[in-house]
């Protein structure tokens, strides 16, 4: 009896092994998402203004709203999102393996990531630059004075590389303190373990506001030592999903350009402007081209507002960080934010 059972078990094990070997066909992300009924969206573990869970575990922030917009465009409902907090180390494999359907977590667009990591970058949603934060007490006024400094930095980021590049280019020395988890890294800086903390300037502002016991004790130095174009990321090899994410972002920008806001949306839907009509689906065709509902962009703006509104609410004067639009203003207002034509 037992012998037979054993044989059966091995046979079963092999059969199962062989069965699994035929790889499950990689379905297009859109089908998978629709089947699952939710978009799995990779965000940071907690950066004020960008993606931060409240005490109930509900995420809010700029990156979170991008995911809500996508959900609104795909499902007509902004809440069909599952937020997956990821560390810098986990983010790419989480995307590659299909654990998340997009990363919306301040990932910098670089050549190597675009090619060797098998990623595709949607349009840039935030133009940033790397900066340094120091204590006011130290009296440091410029990054050029940081020779010999100990600097707190997160590993596995472009920040870590830019830091080394900057000090090499300026023939200065530094000692990095490298810790992966943000809680411990900022803890190290605020305890005085490091002379400076470096990351994207906007994230510095978030850390200063959200994690310093007295934000006025800290200053962010004026230098921006790198270009940090931050963009949502999708997997390489699924053009349809890539298109959807790309145009979801463009629609948010185009809506701001055309003056479509959450408030005046219903009035604008009756507009005679042919561009507005195309965006909001009054003139059909765009949604079909993307494989979405014709009201995709309408739903987006209804859910989270246009790009400018998302920015103001989370990062700008209405939010905790009080960041200036700067480079992130519309191209018509001297910034870099520019949408491709929706037609």
């Amino acid at each position, binding site marked *: 009896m037992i012998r037979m059972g054993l044989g059966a078990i091995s046979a079963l094990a*092999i059969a199962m092994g062989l069965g699994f070997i035929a790889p499950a066909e990689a379905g297009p992300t859109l089908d998978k998402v629709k089947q699952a009924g939710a978009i799995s969206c990779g965000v940071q573990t907690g950066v004020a203004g960008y993606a931060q869970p409240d005490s109930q575990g509900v995420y809010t922030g700029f990156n979170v709203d991008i995911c809500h917009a996508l959900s609104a465009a795909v499902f007509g409902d902004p809440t069909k999102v599952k937020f997956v907090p990821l560390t810098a180390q986990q983010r790419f494999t989480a995307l590659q393996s299909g654990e998340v359907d997009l990363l919306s977590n301040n990932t910098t667009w670089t050549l*190597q990531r675009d090619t060797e*990591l098998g990623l595709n970058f949607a349009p840039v949603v935030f133009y940033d630059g790397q900066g340094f934060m120091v204590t006011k007490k130290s009296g440091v006024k410029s990054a050029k004075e940081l020779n010999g*400094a100990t600097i707190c930095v997160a590993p596995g980021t472009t920040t*870590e590389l830019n830091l*080394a590049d900057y000090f090499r280019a300026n023939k200065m020395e*530094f000692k990095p303190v490298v*810790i992966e988890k943000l809680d411990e890294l900022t803890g190290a800086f605020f*305890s005085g*373990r490091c002379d400076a903390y470096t990351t994207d300037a906007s994230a510095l502002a978030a850390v200063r506001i959200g994690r310093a016991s007295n934000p006025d004790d800290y200053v962010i130095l004026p230098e921006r030592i790198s270009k940090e174009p931050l963009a949502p990321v999708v997997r390489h090899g699924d053009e349809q999903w890539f298109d959807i994410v790309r145009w979801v972002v463009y629609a948010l920008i185009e809506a701001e350009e055309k003056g479509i806001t959450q408030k005046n949306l219903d009035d604008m839907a009756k507009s005679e402007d042919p561009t507005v009509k195309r965006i909001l689906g009054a003139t059909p065709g765009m949604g079909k081209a993307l494989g979405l509902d014709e009201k995709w962009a309408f739903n987006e703006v209804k859910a989270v507002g246009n790009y400018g509104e998302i920015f103001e609410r989370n990062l700008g004067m209405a939010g905790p960080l009080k960041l200036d639009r700067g480079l992130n203003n519309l191209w018509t207002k001297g910034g870099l934010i520019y949408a491709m034509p929706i037609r």
Partner: protein
Amino acid sequence: MASDTAGALRPKRPPPWHDPAVRGVVFQILFVAAVVAAGGFLVHNTLANLERQNIATGFGFLGREAAFGIGESLILYSPADSYARAFLVGLTNTLYVAALGIVLATILGTVMGLARLSSNWLIAKLAQIYVETFRNIPLALQLFFWWGLLRWSAPAPRQAWQPLADVFVSNRGIVFPVPREDPAHPWMLLALVIGIVGAWAIARWARLRQARTGRPFPSGWAGLALVFGLPLAVFLAAGAPLRLDVPALHGFNFTGGTAVSPEFAALLFGLVIYTGSFIAEIVRAGILAVSWGQSEAALALGLTAWQRMRLVVLPQALRVIVPPMTSQYLSLTKNSSLAVIIGFPDLVSVANTTINQTGQAVEGIAMIMAVYLAISLVISALMNLYNRAVALVER
């Protein structure tokens, strides 16, 4: 006729599916096939996933410029060096902290183990409290605690404590002076090597002489004198060229001298205290395992307490102590990988950064595992050699 009887007597050969040998072979084939199939399945998936997503594979990245900084390093390193060199930095840091940790934990553990057996009630109780406290708290928590203590309690470099002249304690670590390089140093090193060889030779000679004539020789003291005396003699002969590289506050931090960072200090301290509590128990159990009769016999022979310990109890206790000690050394080495949570650039931390920068997780983790396996094998092999030396020689 004859063949007929033989046929009747010979047990009937069982059908192949009831023959244990045949079944064994078949079962093994099936088992191996299942394992290979499962492994092949995983490899196939991985390759397919990497291929589909256009992710680079192979170890080509090792030659590329690492381009990231490493906080502390025993060998020369700059961001312009290759990933391979960065790995080497991580490896030397791991080996350094593990080696130091093993030595210090052994000392602490032995002292505490003996203290638990002390006839002094207070000492025994204190040692017991130490053991029971630190054994039962996760190492990760202890590391965070020591690291926090060093960061938050120590002053900034400008207000550094100065327990000794030219020794500074601040939240950047402990900085102390080191002798500057001198032509006499290589000769002192040579003298040290000669001293060690000499001490070993004397110990051997003394043992042989004692076996032959029964007269003991204070080989321990003679050895010590050789090991420390010879380099000292060379040092004095060279005119005592002691020029210290004295640390001084310069800009943000101390320059000159040698620094022990809070991360390194917390890691070493945590590892030693945690592992020491386990070693104390092993030492105690080992000594208790030597029957009391042995000690009584030694007392009856008129041996002193030290001789009793050294000649009678310890050799027998070591047989019990060495095997579990090996596994403590192994776990200390593996636990040193917790460095990554407090930011000490050990092998795992550097490999972690490499994995993030290159995206080649499979290669990176394979390298970490290979290195730890190799270290484990080396430590096991060394301890096995030692174990053979102390094991009971059956006569």
